[in-house]
């Protein structure tokens, strides 16, 4: 094998590689040159008859190297081409709708309740959930509302069949005050909130016969109205925003003395005045006061030693304010188009 043969062979190989455009053709070409009866193999076999074996071998190597290099390059080229073709064929319509696992949602009232609970639990309050069927005693009498008390009119109560002035559906979560005081055997300090369902004979855009309240009770030796104000300020700021202020107006509830109505800065207008707050800048959200000594006494506490504050509010109103719901019946309607709006975290 002399230089001339090498050159012409290399030329021939180059030309042949140029014509290869598939992996099959590439394989055929490899057979043609490197297969058992391939051209290069034949030359390889011819080495034993060569005169100058060394030169022959060197020249053969040149041809083989040329082939190998071109082969590798072609292989890579064709593989890339093949891959690209494959990728091309695998193209999908990325605008088709996604496949999803359904996303669930907590009911807005649960969200509000948990928000309230978390805040108070973080301040060391327990959460107490009492029964919804209550005695008249726990719902009224032990809260200083004896039978026939005119303040009972504010709550049109559902009594159970044949149980008039005996058993009822609780009309306020204040029942929790009574139960927690009675259950607390050492008659020591109390810090508790009682959230839950309550029932009254009432049904319109702002009243539902079933709604949610939360009651708070703190009893200790030195708990004052000023502390109540501080607590409700903190609560209002956390729930309704840092800019919220709290206003106390004297009022009357049989189970607290003194009693106050608590207004907060209107969350719609920020206190400037708007139709929601009737231009006053304030919205009434809570009733509160210092626990009436009769209530303490009936709960087994000595009013000379202990004093405390209590507050109560409707959680539905907070949900309505927070999410901009105008009709309370929406909350209990369970329309999918309502529920699905709560499939997300808080803002």
């Amino acid at each position, binding site marked *: 094998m002399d230089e001339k043969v090498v050159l012409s062979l290399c030329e021939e190989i180059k030309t042949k590689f140029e014509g290869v455009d598939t992996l099959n053709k590439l394989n055929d070409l490899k057979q043609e040159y490197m297969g058992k009866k391939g051209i290069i193999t034949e030359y390889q076999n011819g080495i034993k008859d060569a005169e100058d074996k060394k030169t022959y071998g060197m020249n053969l190597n040149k041809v083989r190297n040329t082939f190998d290099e071109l082969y590798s390059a072609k292989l890579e080229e064709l593989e890339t081409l093949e891959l690209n073709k494959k990728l091309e064929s695998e193209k999908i319509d990325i605008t088709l709708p996604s496949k999803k696992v359904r996303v*669930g949602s907590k009911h807005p009232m649960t969200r509000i309740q*948990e928000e309230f609970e978390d805040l108070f639990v973080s301040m060391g309050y327990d959460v107490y959930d009492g029964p919804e069927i209550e005695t008249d005693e726990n719902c009224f009498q032990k809260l200083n509302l004896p039978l026939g008390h005119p303040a009972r009119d504010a709550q049109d109560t559902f009594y159970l069949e044949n149980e008039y002035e005996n058993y009822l559906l609780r009309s306020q979560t204040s029942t929790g005050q009574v139960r927690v005081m009675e259950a607390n055997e050492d008659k020591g300090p109390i810090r508790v909130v009682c959230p839950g369902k309550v029932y009254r004979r009432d049904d319109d855009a702002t009243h539902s016969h079933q709604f949610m309240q939360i009651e708070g009770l*703190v009893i200790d030796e030195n708990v004052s109205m000023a502390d109540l104000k501080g607590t409700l300020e903190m609560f209002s700021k956390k729930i309704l925003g840092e800019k919220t202020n709290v206003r106390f*107006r004297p009022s009357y509830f049989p189970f607290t003395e003194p009693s106050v109505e608590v207004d907060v800065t209107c969350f719609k207008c920020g206190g400037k005045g708007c139709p929601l707050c009737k231009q006053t800048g304030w919205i009434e959200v809570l009733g509160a006061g210092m626990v009436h000594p009769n209530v303490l006494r009936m709960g087994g506490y000595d009013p000379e030693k202990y004093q405390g504050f209590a507050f109560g509010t409707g959680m539905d109103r907070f949900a309505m304010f927070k999410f901009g719901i105008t009709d309370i019946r929406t909350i209990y309607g369970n329309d999918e188009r309502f*529920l699905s709006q709560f*499939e997300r975290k808080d803002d």
Partner: protein
Amino acid sequence: MKLSRKFLSDYIDIDGITTEQIAEDMTAVGNEYDSCEKLIPATNLTIGEVIECADHPDSDHLHVCKVDIGSEVLDIVCGAPNCRKGIKVVVALVGAKLPGGEIKAGVIRGCASNGMLCSKAELGLDSKFLKEEDYKGIIELGEDAKLGEDPIKYLGLDDEVIDFELTSNRGDLLSILGMAYEIGAIYGKKVNEVDGYHNESGNIDFDVKVETENCPLFLAKQVKNVTIKESPEFIKNRLIASGIRPINNVVDISNYVMLELGQPLHFYDNDLLGNKIVVRMAKEGEEVKTLDDEVRTLSSEDIVIADESKAIGLAGIMGGASTEINENTKNVLIEAAIFDSVKIRKTAKKVLRSEASNRFEKGIAPIRTYLAIHRCCNLLEKYADATIVGGMIEYDKTFKGVKEIEVSLEKINKVLGINISSEEVIDIFERLNFHVNEDNNVFKVMIPPYRLDISIKEDLIEEVGRMYGMDKIESTKLVLPLKEGKYNKDRRQIKNKMVSLGLDETLSYTLIPESEVHKFTLDNFTHINLADPMSEDRKTLRYSLLYSLKEIYEYNKARNEKDVCIFEMGKGFYKADNEYKEENKLACLMTGKYYLDINSTNVDFYIIKGVLEDLLDYMGYKGRYSIVEGNVPSEFHPGQSAVIMLQGSVVGYIGRLHPSVTKDAVYVFEINLDKVLNNKASRITFKEIPKYLKMVKDVAFVVDNNVSSREIEDVIKKAGGKLLNNIILFDLYTGNNLGENKKSIAYSLEFLDQTKTLTEEEVMEVVNKIIEAVTTKLDAKLRD
């Protein structure tokens, strides 16, 4: 309670304080108001005189007038039949705002009209104060009315009214006098005395017998020879401002005194009454015809005024028709009494809530009863030409002492959390008309008899607080010992899990129709109804939550929302052993799409079963529950439902709703959460992660259709022994090529040894045992 500024001015000097200011300041001390308005809000009115009145050329009823308003003469077209030359009238000028709209200059059928002559109705008085002529004709003012002046003032209707929404403890504020004391306390003003002076002659000839303890005070006086006529304007106007319709002078005086002093009164025609009355409880079923001509049937809980034989009036609520004051009345018996507030409240709720019953319900101070009866005499003498008979019937069992309460400065400051001085406290008490003795910062306070709401020291602290200003209390941050706040974590975590499984939480009503309460359960229980439900749909306390969820599904379906996957946690109620019971339940309903994907199938039994299993596994009951065939409630599809067992007892049901409940493929489950949570959740204990590879072998069997997967798995598990780590069903197939009633069922069997790598031989030995067991025990064939 409507407070007339003019009426109030009789008792305190409020010159220089606007009505709005009074309303705001009263709110600040705990007496909220609803509205604060002029009695007649109309503007731009003036007094005029009709100096010319001609018929309108183009109308059969209109008049074309020239009206002199002092400063000018206006052309005004007027349609009132009583419009005529020479009368003095109320002129609404151009620009006047009346309840009916604004007055504009215009031309009426070709004649210019620059204003309007007003009727009483057009001024905006409530229709109950108007007579027919007040609509038809214009107001005719007296000769003395001065042109150009304010006609409202001339009519005495230039009043302002605050409508208070009072708290139920302040019965004393249901009177002008009580309001005067309260407002006097705010501004530090003295309250004028009530004028009860009158002459008397003769001696009372009447007998009263009180037979019930529900009437602790009963006073009566006789009045002779009254003249029934219209009341003077000031009485009529004050009644109107207070929302009460004037009738005649005698009736009006009884209402006037009630408004003034808070003591309801009843006047009888003494000649129709006879000379004796009895106060007693009604007999069961006794009837009485009240002033409104209604016959009321009474119970033994109602207090009545009776003659010897029968009830003639409903005490404290409404008088009787038979002894009513009428235009021929000459002699009057005045009744001023106190009736038990609880009894009155009950009767009033049943019969009618009136101005009188409202005051009795809130309680009346006896001192006011005495004051009122004398005030009636005073006014009847002045305005009804009455002769007051000497002597008075006086039945009085009321408390006569003076309430004295002690409170210390320290306690006041401790409860309110403020730092008020002894001088300030004394000032507040004195402004409230409380007599106070202070000794070493302890106050002995004498409570005026009309303040029935004050009986303990906390009440006094409230008085100090509200006069000091509750809003002036500066907030403090309560510091209490560190303590863990406890709450029900289970409930939250279960809800979180259900939400993470893609379900929306619902919140529905506890009250359902009675006809539905025993559905969706096999339990025998006594259900609970309300005594007085708002409707049949909200009569009964639910036992199962599934009725509510089904209703929610139907509600949404009707709105074309067909993919409904929801859950609710709530209570089920029942009665057992004479006790009311509540149990926490969790219910779930799924229908439509669960996986959101164009090709996905709808919810089926296996999807909801997966949700339930995920939940129970999450709750720590993995391997301790089973979902098995068994008795299910008739609202469930018998072939696609199961009983949920936990530790050997039934905790709920799962399955498709029966076609008789809904034709749609709706799947539900409900578990009794209390029963479930009674079982302690297993603890999370870490197991070593296997060091050796698991080996997986697939096997498929052809078996009869009625052989359940559970049966096959049980056989496999038993034969598989220790090395078998997991069984996963991966294929289920039925087809004609398998033969009739046959199915092919294929499992991946996972083998694992915690101590070494398994060999093919070891595993195949077990696999063969499994195949052997399944084929022989279940008459199955191995499928190649």
